[in-house]
């Protein structure tokens, strides 16, 4: 492929990242080929998301774009032009999903995390689910999280944590 046959991209792109409007210059801040996951981690230091499979299979790089959970390794950074991005760094300290994942120790289910590498991805997917559906059934939780892989096998604890997060949201009057 020759250079002039490459698709064209805007020279400057703008996106909202964790509530802050940012502008970047293609060629200086990122390349047209830079994935969104690599851009967020390496250029912006958002290291909560992980690049584990880099091919859309594990969910460790999940962020929220315009309210939906997306795999940031499957998007180019330039594709985020004009969009609103939320990474785990943008969640408040008392986020009910984060709290519920951290606190899970209900007997019989284990913790919601062990090595913790997949956890930010699970938190973001669960966050997007609960924003859309604050009272999901267990089947809906399983369906929503089916793209996230936990090799430590904490699925039972994770399901409990999402349930507890929903309870916390309800207790806080539906506040996300």
């Amino acid at each position: 492929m020759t250079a002039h046959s490459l698709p064209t991209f805007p020279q400057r792109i703008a996106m909202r990242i964790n509530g802050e409007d940012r502008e970047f210059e293609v060629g200086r801040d990122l390349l047209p080929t830079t994935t969104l996951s690599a851009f967020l981690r390496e250029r912006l230091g958002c290291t909560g998301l992980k690049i584990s499979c880099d091919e859309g299979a594990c969910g460790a790089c999940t962020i929220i774009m315009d309210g939906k959970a997306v795999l940031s390794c499957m998007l180019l950074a330039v594709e985020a032009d004009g969009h609103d991005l939320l990474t785990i760094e943008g969640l408040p300290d008392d986020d009910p999903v984060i709290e519920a994942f951290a606190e899970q120790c209900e007997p019989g289910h284990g913790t919601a995390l062990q090595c913790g590498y997949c956890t930010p991805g699970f938190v973001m997917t669960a966050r997007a689910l609960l924003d859309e559906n604050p009272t999901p059934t267990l089947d809906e939780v399983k369906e929503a999280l089916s793209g996230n892989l936990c090799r430590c096998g904490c699925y039972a604890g994770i399901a409990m944590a999402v349930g507890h997060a929903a309870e916390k949201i309800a207790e806080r009057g539906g506040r996300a």
Partner: protein
Amino acid sequence: MSAPYQPRVPRRFVGSYRPRIDAVEKAHGSAPYADDEIAERNYPGLLHARVLRCPYPRARIKHLDTTKAEALPGVRCLLTYRDPEVARLKPTNAGWTDAVDTVSYDNMMWRKFRDRRVLGDYATWAGDEVGIAIAADTEQIAEQALRMVEVEWEQLPFLLDPISAMQPGAPVIHPEVAEHNVLPPDPIGGPDVFLNRGDVEQGFAGADVVIEMDTSHHNPTQGSLDPWCCVAKWDDDRLTVFSNSYSADQTRMHISQMLDLPIHKVRVISKYVGGQFGRCDTGDQPFFLFTALLARKSGRPVKFKHTRRDSFHDTRQGALYHCKVGAKTDGAITALHFKSIGDIGAHADHSVFALKFAPAEIAEVALAPIPNVKMESYAVYTNRIPSCMMRGVGNSQFNFIFGRMIDGLAERLDMDPIELAIKNFGHEWGSCPDQSLTAVLETGAERIGWADKRHKPGQGPLYEGAKRRGVGFSVHPGWHAEWQEERRGQVQAKVTFYPDGTVTLDAPTVETGTGSNTCNVLGCAEALAFLGVHPQDITWVSTVDTDNGMRDCVQTDSAVSFLQSEVLAVVAEQLKQKLVDLAAPVLGVPADQLSIQNGQFVAPGHSVSVKDLLWQGDLVPVSVMVSRRPSTQRTGVPYIASFAEVEVDTETGRTQVLKIVIINDCGTVMYASGAEAQQVGGQVMALGEALTEELIYDPVRGVPLNFNLID
């Protein structure tokens, strides 16, 4: 689970249900993993390395032309097999130890199986790191440069299964190690017949029934989500390596020995690891060496990271097992003969541990009451992905045939397999029936509904036309008693007590997810209860840094959960004495009349808070470091049993697991939530391994087809 765990002995903190100590930072995504920290902002001038991976199952590099690659802008440094600093590196093995101890090159466990050359010119599997490594400004440039290296390969005949590899005339994969692809006897694993107790032939002759059976176990991979990565950085003649290795002290020894550097000139740092599960054995991996050499040659810090495909780097050993068993009609086993053929893949590494060492250990305990036992094993090279440790080294393969044997014999004798197991197995200094074995089997039977659900093969009811259900179990002697950790040598821990009553706990162990950090904090709080210390008063040092002079306790056998806490009990005694010696002259009380209870110095006529007294002094923290070998007092053998109820569609073969019951005689549970997470998580991984995961090879080209998490 019907009832939460209740500690047998009431304790303040040990055995409790609570969140992990690292749960908040992990849930926030702020826990520091190596890949998060090895970045340009922390390592200015950072270069990224990629290594050539052979596209063929077996090939030799005849010639490399690097001219075009060197000319690519952004390429900073190349290292090839022709460079003297590479060529002079000794042949090695990636499993120097099973990680319980730190070993030198000369004393590596598998010193007869040094089949690895660092960046050599000979590749023995499709994926082998060979020939050349390139450091460039970005990973992409390094990868592009590798594609521009013109490699002239001599493709060689290859082998994908151990039976073909054992045939006369088969290509010999590592002639310097194994003349006919079968690993020779060695000092650790022993000869081919590595265990021969009594006389099995006589045992079979005296049996009423003799049956034989086979199993075949495939080779799943660990699949840690945190791909291996490291950075190597030189400051003058001193090398610092920061990585997600789970064994810092051994990694330092490996690098020091292979690069011929004095130990104090190598510093190894590890923080959190995103799942270990045995991958890459103890991590005595060539990539540490070529990354360090690239960093020295380029004068810049160099990062190396596996892609997901690269992280399909090793597996559990595939193994074919054959078993012959003889028994009396009352179920007493008279003789057992196990024979295994292990597919060890392209490198020997730690395979013999799984094929000989681990089964021999089982024979010494579970099979101790059987008078005649013979075990033989053949570890065979093929040109597949190398095998190494994976959760329960060698046990899955052995348990598979062991379970089949129990079922097969019980069926033949018309006995209940639980009764058969209890009648025959125990441990060497115990008596039959063994209490732990009996407890796990009887509890499991009750929980799964054995009495109602168990039926003879083919005699159960049909469900929905063609589905059948069955219950079964697997049983295994556990590896989490202190005496079983004797080979660890010294286990170390240090406590620093501050004048305000808070504590820094340096119990070096790389946290891989097992929750040992939480166990250590609970063990420390329990030991320091006399000072009124609570878990929240303790800061656990999460970074393992060899510069602190202490050896890290590596997370294998689930043993770190208690090994360092055993040391902390001794630390606490010494700390108490130190504080008493400090306070006695201040209080004007003889030290032998002074004690500490609930945070108070107590003596006749005195009761003063430890904090208040220390706060009046020089405010110097009081530290105690203890190095101690595990106690070798034999406390028994804990058993584990897993029961499952499955449903098989006899028309399609579709298998569904309806219920699983895990009964693990854990002994003293250090941390209940963590112990449950480990049990459940291990079973989840086992389900994947049994039902959905398998590495597939193209038999024609000899290359793997599904080194990803999708297929």
